[in-house]
């Protein structure tokens, strides 16, 4: 099959962590079919997992009616992911802003609990991470990860 870059995969997820494994594995498989390495796909799986997990856990205060939108744009040289939640509390938004701003692994690892490392790992595995918050407290996170050989050459 001939692939024409870029192409986009978009999904709307229910606010339920149980859906994440299917999404991350699907993205991983698509990346490998698109010629990205197994290592790139694995690391991208961790990124997708972390930002979807974050959106579902902290950005979807509407319970069962909440949804998360995830889009993955695959270019020949990179992958870009945008995950948009349905609106979190001000406390969670401030925490998210702080996590994105903070320097990489700014705290000792021992200070992170089971749920505190996600965005730190995303920062370590990606080229850029941007956070946007609109007037309704809907947040979206945009992550760019370049193909290894491109990333190493630049």
């Amino acid at each position: 099959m001939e692939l024409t870059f870029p192409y986009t995969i978009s999904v709307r997820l229910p606010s339920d962590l149980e859906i994440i494994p299917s999404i991350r594995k699907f993205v991983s498989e698509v990346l490998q079919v698109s010629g990205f390495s197994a290592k790139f796909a694995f690391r991208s799986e961790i990124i997708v997992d972390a930002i979807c997990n974050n959106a579902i856990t902290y950005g979807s205060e509407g319970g069962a009616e909440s949804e998360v939108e995830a889009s993955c744009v695959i270019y020949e040289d990179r992958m870009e992911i945008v995950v948009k939640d349905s609106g979190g509390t001000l406390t969670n938004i401030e925490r998210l802003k702080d996590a994105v701003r903070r320097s990489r692994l700014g705290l000792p690892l021992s200070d992170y609990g089971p749920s505190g490392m996600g965005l730190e790992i995303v920062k370590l595995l990606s080229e850029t991470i941007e956070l946007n918050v609109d007037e309704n407290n809907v947040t979206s996170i945009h992550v760019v990860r370049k193909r290894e050989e491109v990333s190493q050459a630049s």
Partner: protein
Amino acid sequence: METQIQLACEEIAGKSDARIVRFKGDLDATNVDFVTEQITNYFGDGLVKIIADFKQLRYVNSTGLGVLLHFNKSAKEKGGCFKIVNLNENVYEIIEIIGAASLLDIYDELSEAIAALD
């Protein structure tokens, strides 16, 4: 939804306070509570020396990595240990990238980890 992880526990000859726990599947936020409960129960039963065999563990997410660090810390606080063997390359590299390789007791071979229990 069915959990994506299976744990199998094995005794170690001559080590009454130790167990090998074999992980199979993916460790992530959907099953981290199950895994935490199992390992905490072992600690509660006095099995404070755990060797986690990751030969069949394909994937660990950030939540799973946090829990591994937590097990390591808890085991040491109880006078035991939480040793990891047979990590696949992808998972090991993530542990290295976040700087946790030096915090966790990682071994290439099961026999090395068992020998290090003494």
